[in-house]
């Protein structure tokens, strides 16, 4: 896609097709010949993993939709029927349910990679924003998907989240009504959620195509953050990165399999195996683990509208990140101070996730209980999440803008070929013209 195409049609059919629809040329330039920096580490394998997970979610989802009944009276039983009476239904359903978690795990690691290596900086801002849109669409899809089995946590989670929109002034109530399709979360809600849950993955797929397009114009970033200077800095995507991504996918699938085959329900909540009952509220409504950090931010604010705005603000912040980070140096490898703030940020995000799964009044440490400060029990999850929330926002809005101006970065290498020789070639340079052809 970037640079002139090196594709040469070899057969008559390819030549014929190439002058009419150069799709083989497109595939060749995109997936086979695409020049990729040769120093990418395993943090760069999550793109391939995510593409696979999207494919698996769509494939399993299409089969599940053949058996699922989107009706409040039948949804729960139809999901169980899939697990009991559909051939390999248990496999398809558990792959889909755990696949969502795996998808989010991979996307979070993919995002951490971006934050660490500064992949969102010029000229990759659009690439980053498209990624944020994919993440947003994933969150909508994941939340809606959790509602479909119509268990207790599905129903009451849907009530809590749809009510959040109601806190927004003027536009809030109409949005809530539109989401409900009635006066409360009911059959109409379930039906439209099913429809949207089928639609959104294809929106994600479209965004992924744009994401890959936007990747292939400037090309990959790399662990040094230094621009690719010449062809010597790169290797063709195939076979070098197809095989490396393939290995990483294998490892990832082993983790995926450990959940699907041996702990299929460990990431879910037991209450979601109780059919939805609007008259009985679960003791403790918790979202899926991948929403817990945002749930903690929501609950950190005593005011409902404030909490909602802050939660959406956390996501909105990601979109403007390329313009908040003032540092010209991309990779944290050469930013000795920023690196530490970065790891504290990761810790803050994990702490938020932990707090989101706890009751707000739970003590953080066993004793002393009731550590009062200005009439507030400081030793509580809600206060811990307030501290972490503060850091979460400070990292993007204060630390990154200021640090870019004040920090003295370490010397950045001239090109990626210099510092990358941590794994020297086993044969002299020059012998490696096309090692993939040498068996």
């Amino acid at each position, binding site marked *: 896609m970037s640079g002139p195409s090196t594709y040469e049609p070899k057969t008559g059919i390819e030549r014929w097709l190439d002058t009419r629809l150069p799709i083989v040329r497109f595939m060749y330039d995109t997936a086979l010949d695409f020049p990729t920096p040769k120093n990418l580490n395993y943090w760069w394998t999550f793109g391939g993993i995510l593409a696979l997970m999207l494919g698996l979610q769509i494939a399993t989802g299409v089969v599940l939709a053949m058996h699922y009944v989107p009706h409040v009276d039948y949804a729960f039983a139809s999901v169980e029927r899939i697990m009991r009476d559909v051939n390999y239904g248990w496999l398809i359903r558990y792959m889909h349910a755990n696949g969502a978690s795996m998808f989010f795990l991979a996307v979070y690691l993919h995002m951490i990679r971006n934050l660490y290596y500064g992949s969102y900086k010029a000229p990759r801002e659009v690439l980053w924003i498209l990624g944020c849109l994919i993440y947003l669409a994933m969150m909508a899809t994941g939340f809606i998907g959790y509602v479909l089995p119509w268990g207790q946590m599905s129903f009451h989670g849907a009530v809590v989240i749809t009510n959040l929109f109601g806190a927004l002034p003027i536009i809030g109530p109409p949005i809530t009504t539109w989401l409900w399709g009635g006066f409360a979360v009911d059959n109409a809600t379930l039906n439209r959620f099913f429809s949207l849950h089928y639609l959104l993955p294809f929106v994600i797929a479209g965004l992924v195509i744009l994401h890959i397009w936007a990747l292939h114009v400037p090309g990959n970033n790399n662990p040094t953050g230094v621009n690719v200077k010449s062809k010597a800095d790169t290797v063709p995507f195939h076979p070098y990165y197809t095989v490396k991504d393939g290995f990483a996918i294998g490892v990832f699938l082993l983790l995926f399999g450990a959940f699907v085959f041996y702990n299929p329900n460990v990431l879910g909540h037991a209450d979601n195996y109780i059919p939805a009952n609007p008259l009985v509220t679960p003791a403790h409504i918790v979202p899926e683990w991948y929403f817990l950090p945002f749930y903690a931010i929501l609950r950190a604010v005593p005011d409902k509208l404030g909490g909602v705005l802050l939660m959406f603000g956390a996501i909105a912040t990601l979109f403007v990140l390329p313009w908040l980070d003032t540092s010209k140096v991309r990779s944290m490898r050469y930013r000795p101070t920023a690196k530490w703030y970065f790891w504290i940020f990761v810790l803050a995000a994990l702490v938020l996730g932990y707090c989101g799964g706890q*009751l707000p009044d739970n003590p953080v440490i066993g004793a002393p209980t009731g550590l009062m400060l200005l009439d507030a029990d400081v030793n509580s999850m809600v206060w811990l999440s307030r501290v972490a929330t503060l850091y979460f926002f400070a990292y993007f809005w204060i630390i990154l803008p200021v640090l870019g101006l004040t920090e003295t970065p370490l010397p950045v290498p001239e090109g990626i070929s210099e510092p990358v020789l941590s794994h020297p070639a086993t044969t002299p340079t020059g012998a490696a013209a096309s090692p993939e052809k040498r068996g």
Partner: protein
Amino acid sequence: MLRKAIALAALGIALVAGPAAANTGEGYELRHPKWTFTGPFGKFDPAQLQRGYKVYREVCAACHAMDLMYFRNLGQSSGPFYDAEYKNPNDNPYVKSLAKDIQVPDIDSETGDVIQRPATPADRFPKPFPNEAAARASNGGAAPPDLSVIAKAREGGPDYIYSILTGYLAPPAGLTMTPTQHYNAYMAGDLAPYWKGQGHAPKGGFIAMPAPLADGKVTFDDGKPSTVAQQAEDVTAFLAWAAEPKQTERKQFGLGAMIYLLIFTVILYFSYRRVWRNVAH
């Protein structure tokens, strides 16, 4: 490298600890009998499932429905009455005779009258009450929950069910009892309002269900001594199977899939090393 490992490990802990930590119940630590069906190679013991079905049928079924269960399930692969001779559980004569002993409601196709007829393997387990209001009315205001997926629907799973069934201890002196409630050491609840004794209120809570099991209440066909603990263990195993009847198939399939993936991954790793061996990176 170490830092990456720490970061990944922390993420892993957050992943597992998050949902697990969400449960905060004030109760005793659950009892944990030795189950045959846990772990990656766990399998259900058919003899135990048969005893468990008998406990369900003779005790639990009086009040608890299992609406997702069909009699044919009893004869399917890894079920209590599976017989390799009858791959189609609807043909299994033992399952047929078990079903025949139970009456299920139907409509007479000639007259349209509501009738009762003997069940076939294709029938669902019948419900003990016609509707939830009737279930409530007959049970002191608390409707007995459906048991089809109960082993998945409670934190602690089989351990929790076993603990509840064997947790009917004598109420601690100083606890004000109500006529329709029973003390159970493993039930979630706050007993402080009912506590007149010394110190903190005892752990546990009130449960509407009276102690369902008693020594000798069910006669086991295989001669197992019929203690409360044995009945509880067997019926819990049966409920765990009913909640996840494809569990054995899942683990067996999983073993093959994991071995395949492991070999595939190792081959890919060596391919990766080979492809990259002449590239400095």
